């Protein structure tokens, strides 16, 4: 790839695009930002790929590190704005309305997915990135430490704290949702 072999770059991109895109998606909750993050990461790899040192670790943690920098930049930039459109499901939103074998199961699973993704997005970024990498992307703490450029102990403690925070947020959100469902219906006298 360093010699300008387009085919090699395409192979490398197809191998790693998925994890990087999903990392961006889980970190930002936006399809557009996740795509931008993926694009930026591979652009950095093209322009300054020589910075990658194989003796320090594998390519995937390095790419996660680049993705993390881009995500934090996007989060900082997008902080003042609130999305009017729920684009968390992006192009697949229409698929939600197609019932499969078990409509009730699909419905409840969709609800769980929505809750978990919302809860992840409300985590502070330093916990969110560790939880996303270790729990969702299932990379080891050692690789996460390389990606985040911090000590292994820091990753472990953040992961533990992040999981507890996530559980807390999930229970709060679950209670809130059930309260909304159980709320007495107001009658319209119009």
């Amino acid at each position, binding site marked *: 790839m360093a010699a*300008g072999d*387009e085919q090699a*770059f*395409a192979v490398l*991109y*197809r191998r790693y*695009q*998925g994890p990087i*895109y*999903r990392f961006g*998606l*889980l970190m930002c909750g936006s399809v557009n930002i*996740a*795509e931008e993050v*993926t*694009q930026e990461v*591979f*652009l950095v790899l*093209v*322009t300054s790929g020589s910075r990658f040192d194989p003796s320090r670790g594998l390519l995937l943690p390095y790419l996660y590190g680049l993705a993390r920098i881009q995500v934090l930049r996007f989060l900082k930039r997008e902080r003042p704005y609130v999305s009017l459109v729920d684009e968390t499901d992006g192009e*697949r939103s229409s698929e939600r309305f197609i019932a499969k074998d078990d409509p009730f199961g699909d419905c409840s*699973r969709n609800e*769980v*997915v929505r*809750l*978990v*993704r919302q809860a*992840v997005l409300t985590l502070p970024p330093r916990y969110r990135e560790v939880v996303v990498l270790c*729990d*969702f992307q299932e990379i080891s703490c050692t690789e996460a430490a390389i990606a985040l450029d911090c000590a292994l102990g820091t990753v472990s403690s953040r992961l533990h704290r992040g*999981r507890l925070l*996530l*559980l807390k947020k*999930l*229970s709060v959100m679950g209670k809130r949702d059930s309260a909304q469902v159980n709320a007495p219906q107001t009658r319209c006298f119009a």
Partner: protein
Amino acid sequence: MKCLEFELIVTDLARNRSNDLPPERALAHAEGCDRCATRLVHEQALSYGVRAVMAEIGTAEPSPRVETALLAAFNAHFAQKAPSTTSTTLLSRRPRLSFRLAFVFAILLILISIPPILWLRSRSLTGVPEVISQNPSAGSIPSLSADPGAGAKPRPGAGTSRQKSQRPFVVNHPNVTETNAPEEVTEFLPLADGEDLTLLEAAQVVRVELPVSALMDLGLRVGPEISPGQVKADILVGHDGSARAIRFVR
């Protein structure tokens, strides 16, 4: 098993991962401990949620236009790079070189600026007292008498604590050391006719050097015995910043 040990393996247990400790022991502990049982249930729920999310987005990929754009960028990058490899390496080295030069220049600048600073510091410590006019304590007015030592007399009716805080008014001049003889000063002459200076709430005395011609502008008569040139004077400035009175110093 203790709760602490259980806490260490609860995540692996909820996700059915292998661990050093046998899961039977952990499950047995959870049966006897309500807190750990709840913790395990929560962890299992979280694990279920994580699996559901990954099942949902596990195969998600960016749209093909990203790949197209990246391949175009890749080709453009290498097409640009190919003709002049040596020049690009030189260009990439240039910022580092300029950074080093800037660093050396900064160090030199610091080294050059240290001796004058030290010299100025030593001069200010051993040398002349600071140039200033001191503000007589708030609420008091310098004396209008000609005695410079008895500068700030307390106003009648002022409290005892005020009196303690008031210090005799001294004016230092940059060219006059404290060892010199005391200056002779005149009384304060109000600049506005009929103004009672004792009514001033707060005032500040500012040492100035005026040309003799300026005295005439202030409405003061200048006798022939005063030689032309600069005259030293103290101006009494009110809290509103306007000059209220003047006295001459010799």
